[in-house]
């Protein structure tokens, strides 16, 4: 049995207990149960943990956190009509992004996700510039035009499966994505 630290029960606030190994054998039940612990054994914590006071999330110490949930689901009438994804759009997305919406479940999942994102339409964004990323108010660093990198051909070529005389080898053109029927046949025997 390993030594473990207990989360404090209600009577012992903010204090972590360490139960020495030998005492486990005295417990009538499995050491993980702490129901009767506080009444039977009083172990004082080690000195180093007396200085730390851990805040419990259930205690209302942090006023920013509301006690009960405050969000409400957006009513359906405020949302735009649900987006239906036609089959050719699905094929096009699969070809462009190389993701697989193989089953009807995948498609249903996508439509649900779109529906969830539709809730953003409720927010009024007139006059507000769209945000690209949280870093958009940072200063873009401008580098001086001096050579710092390069000349690591051997290292890069080692990463490739096939190389010819310091060139990377690729197929003659883009290999088109196989059609849906062929794909299901190909993936039937794979682990995906």
């Amino acid at each position: 049995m390993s030594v473990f630290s207990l989360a404090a029960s209600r009577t012992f606030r903010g204090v972590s207990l360490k139960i020495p190994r030998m005492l486990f054998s005295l417990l009538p039940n499995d050491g993980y149960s702490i129901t009767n612990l506080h009444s039977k054994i009083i172990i004082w914590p080690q000195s180093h943990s007396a200085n730390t006071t851990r805040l419990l999330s259930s205690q209302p110490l942090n006023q920013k956190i509301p006690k009960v949930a405050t969000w409400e689901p957006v009513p359906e009438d405020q949302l735009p009509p649900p987006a239906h994804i036609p089959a050719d759009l699905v094929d096009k997305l699969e070809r462009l992004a190389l993701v697989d919406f193989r089953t009807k479940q995948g498609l249903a999942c996508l439509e649900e996700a779109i529906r969830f994102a539709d809730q953003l339409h409720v927010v009024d964004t007139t006059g507000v510039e769209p945000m690209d990323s949280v870093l958009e108010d940072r200063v873009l660093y401008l580098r001086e035009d001096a050579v710092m990198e390069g000349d690591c051909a051997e290292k890069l070529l080692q990463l490739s499966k096939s190389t010819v005389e310091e060139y990377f080898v690729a197929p003659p053109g883009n290999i088109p994505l196989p059609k849906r029927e062929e794909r299901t046949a190909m993936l039937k025997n794979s682990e995906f």
Partner: protein
Amino acid sequence: MAASCVAASELLNNIKQISVLCPKASYAVRAVSTSSPQCHAQLPQRARSAPQQLVGVVGLEIHAQINSSTKLFSGAPVRFSAPPNSLVSFFDASLPGTLPVLNKRCVEAAVMTGLALNCAINRKSLFDRKHYFYADLPAGYQITQQRLPIAVDGVLTYSLLGGKKRNQVMRKNVTIKQIQLEQDSGKSLHDDVRSQTLIDLNRAGVGLMELVMEPDMSCGEEAAAAVRELQLILQALGTCQGNMSEGQLRVDANVSVHRPGEPLGVRTEVKNINSIRYLARAIDYEIQRQIDVLQRGGTVQNETRAYDSKSGETLPMRDKEGLQDYRFMPEPNLPPLILYEDNASLPTGIDACQVVVVQKIKEGLPELPSVKRDRLVQTYGILPEHSFTLVNEDGLVDYFEAVLKATKKEPRKVIGWVTNELLGHLKQQDMSVCQSPISPSALAELLELQETGHISSSVAKQVFQEMWRSPGKTALQITQEQDLGLVSDTAQLHSICQKVVDSHPDEVHAIRSGNKKVLNKLMGLVQKETKGRADPVLVRAILQKKTS
């Protein structure tokens, strides 16, 4: 490293050049004449077509490789030829965990180009990702500026030599929609023998300026003149070396045809154009092809075609699967690029080498070609078309000015020699000015001889030819060797003129009865006698006296 270079070049010799991979188009291609149709002249009338003729509409997309030491987003060097994959950093190979770091020199180059083309420079510009799959784009996307580029709304003013004698300078404008910074992709060498493509990432990540032009042009000649002007501007600024054959300036043409007043027709994109001459030919061929297709009742397809310089035709390219959807998205790793107007608007405490100030760049702009042309016309009093020819040819302005320094002759007289004689000979043998066998001082000496009356102008041309054939011999030497000095001895001239007058009584009679033009025939005879060495002014005077 050296051994692998040799091996690689041997390998390259066995691999075909990047060639058009698909078989010739199925429709019969009509042979097109090599002379380009004069676009300011009327197109030939077709028998059964509508009253209005189809005219071409050409828009250009130009990618100019920025002349910097390192790439746009990584610190790897930029060089034209180097062992394959030796100028590649981890970011260029898009290994995971690498991030782009913008090159200040590339930003300055783009701002300089924008200012030279009268663009509005956007104080804030954003970077985006353009996604497409190809083996020479390891990341699967290219960082470009599509939403908010660095410069917009500019004008490129170029001049065409037109008119009947090609000596009228016509000024035209092309609107530049935007200038944006973007990454270059790697180079792919197609090996058809082994059915594979070899990828070299040396070029991947190099900074490019993409100049998008509105479709304001109507034929190959205009497009060629516009690109030449742009080449001169970029070379003067030093932002791009403008060498089309080395791939530093890549031009793709969007060509369509329509009847004036009607909406624009379906456009095709023409790629693989390696020089300005091929650009004009490719565009003219494509316009003609589209006109033929429409007049046979077919429709032009929106496709990408490659120009084959050997046959002079455009052929459809394979590997373009329908209309591409690039799924543009903002680049999350790069905050917006902020440019400052002048030093006064800089926020306090900012590092000076971290900012690009537009005012400073504007003040540091070198002399642009159009300004240079006007200056030459002002300083030397030469005609605009001559100054146009001077600036158009690399090194010719310096040659001209060197000749002027060494001779007292008037610039207007020298210019004819430089633009007609010298340039004509250079073009005939496809040489550049720096390869000219006649140095500026030698030409100056020849002109001095002519000016001081030692030789006549026709003899001067002869001596020029001789100097061209045997470089190293001075004009004086040749004149003395071949005894081409002007004959100004009046007694000798008198006797020769008398001989001619006596042997042609009919002509003398014609002159006396009023036909003065016959005098020229007599002059020609005298010149033949003296082997062209007689002073024409004296001969004319003597003959006139004798025949009056």
